[in-house]
């Protein structure tokens, strides 16, 4: 009889502890995440391929020689570590390479190129005259409007991508991805 009375308490305790998720399983935040990465880069790839000016340029000069740069972080009160900053433009490159390999030639950016040469070549490093010069640069600038109070945080993101002509400084193509996120603080936040 005593044990029967104790059972609900023990079940409650067991429930409490089995219900504890890890620190990274529960909760959500307003940061850009992998869903945004996929949605955003898919949208940009569709947009570039469908753009009339981009297609006209390809018809005129052949495959576009493009260098990509990591995202320029202009977000309010938010960091974008290098790996993430590269992922947001690298996935665009990967998708275009996969789906339209004949239309684009991808060129390492200067920093990556010299870093790779430094690592792999046992010769004194100087200029590389044989290096292919890019015609276009694929860049992205992420900015946000952010509010944070003791009650919660909201971010409105504008992630702008551009394909710029490095000779003329003209913008061949541009598009953006916008998303609003909010998180309300609760008990123990």
């Amino acid at each position, binding site marked *: 009889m005593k044990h029967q009375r104790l059972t609900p308490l023990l079940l409650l305790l067991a429930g409490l502890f089995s219900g504890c998720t890890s620190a*990274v399983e529960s909760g959500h935040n307003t940061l850009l995440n992998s869903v945004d990465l996929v949605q955003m880069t898919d949208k940009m790839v569709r947009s570039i391929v469908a753009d009339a000016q981009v297609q006209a340029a390809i018809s005129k000069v052949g495959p576009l020689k493009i260098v990509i740069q990591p995202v320029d972080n202009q977000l309010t009160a938010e960091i974008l570590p290098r790996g993430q900053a590269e992922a947001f433009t690298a996935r665009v490159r990967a998708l275009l390479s996969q789906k339209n390999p004949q239309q684009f030639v991808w060129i390492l950016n200067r920093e990556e190129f010299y870093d790779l040469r430094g690592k792999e070549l046992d010769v004194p490093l100087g200029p590389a005259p044989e290096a292919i010069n890019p015609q276009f640069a694929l860049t992205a600038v992420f900015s946000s409007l952010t509010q*944070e109070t003791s009650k919660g945080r909201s971010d409105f993101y504008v992630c702008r991508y551009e394909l710029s002509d490095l000779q003329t400084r003209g913008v061949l193509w541009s598009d953006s991805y916008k998303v609003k996120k909010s998180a309300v603080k609760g008990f*123990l936040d």
Partner: protein
Amino acid sequence: MGLSSKLIVLALLALLPGCVSQAQRDADEGVAAYYMGDYPRAIQLIKPAAAKTNENFVLNNDRLAMAALAAYDLTTAENAFVRSYEVINSVGVNDGGRSLGAALVSENIKVWKGEPFERAMVNFYLGVIYYMRHDYGNARGAFENALFKLRDYGEQSDKNDQYHDVESNFVLAYLMLARSYQQLGRTDLAQKNFDRVTALRPDLAALADVSINAEANLVLIIDFGRGPQKEANGDGAFVGFRPTPREQGPIPLPAVTVDGRRQDLQNRIRPPVDLLAIAQDRRWESIDTIRAVKSVLGTGLIAAGIADAAIRRRPDPAVSLGLIAGGLILKATSQGDLRQWEMLPRTVFVVPVHVPPGKHDVTVEFPALPGYRQRWLGIDVPEKGDAAYYIHIDRYNSGPFQWPPAAVPPAGKVVG
């Protein structure tokens, strides 16, 4: 419920929060190694615990990052701080069992995210790492976020606006934010933030001078002193931070010597933050109320049990002991969470100086505190822009150290 059942429950409640894993014991030992200036050992000991995504995930990553920063292992420090940053910026990490467990059983069950000043310092150090790497965009973002974290102290526009008080004590982030904008070429925003520093702390006007900061090509970021330590009252239910600034006395000022020549920094060396002061503004949370109520009820039940046994002519031992046991359970579960990021310094000095480009020997010392000094040989100062160096002052950590330390990749290599 019988006495034996109560005792079983009491034992369970006492046991559950008391379980400490080997990894956590190692992490605690790692903290001790950090205080002794043995940073590689501290990293080695804390790393396994920091990989566990349990209730101490943020705390152990903060500890790991701090040890790695002191050892100039910036990649480890950045990765650990970013892991912490992501959880700190999340809401609902304690939803479900953890919230209930923290309210009913022990507050230690909750995923620790720290007090607002501890969250702010995570962001500040993350900013310092990016600043040292010349990644000023991310440095700016981190310093801004450090200021946002202080808003948890409350931001009402009335006389109880604690945020304004705390902000005045945390101009450190504004100062580094202004420097980041300066490096990004946004002189307008740099000016705005330097002005904010001066408005909040007029005594820092010289440190926040635009031209001095624009000319400075060497920035020393100097951690000094022991930060606030969390303590519980005799009852264990109420927690606070000690010592107070008054108990500890004024912060001593450092002197900087470059190539054997004492720098004339005049009134530029002032502490832009005092964490002992900020910690006194500890916010009162719902969980504090729950603990306080449990503690008071527990005391009441124990008193009632004793009174029942003493006053009644024919006391029922089951009733008396039941009341006392119930009271003890409430008292046992009302203990405050004493976890804290104990490795924080009391203050962080920012010292911008101009020296000829090239290699220099730099010594930071505290004349008022013999033994508190650190010497670096061969510090690199660039021709363009600036170079920032983090210096963690400790009695057991005087050097001399050769730049670059082992954990820093050779010049020209991309890090991160």
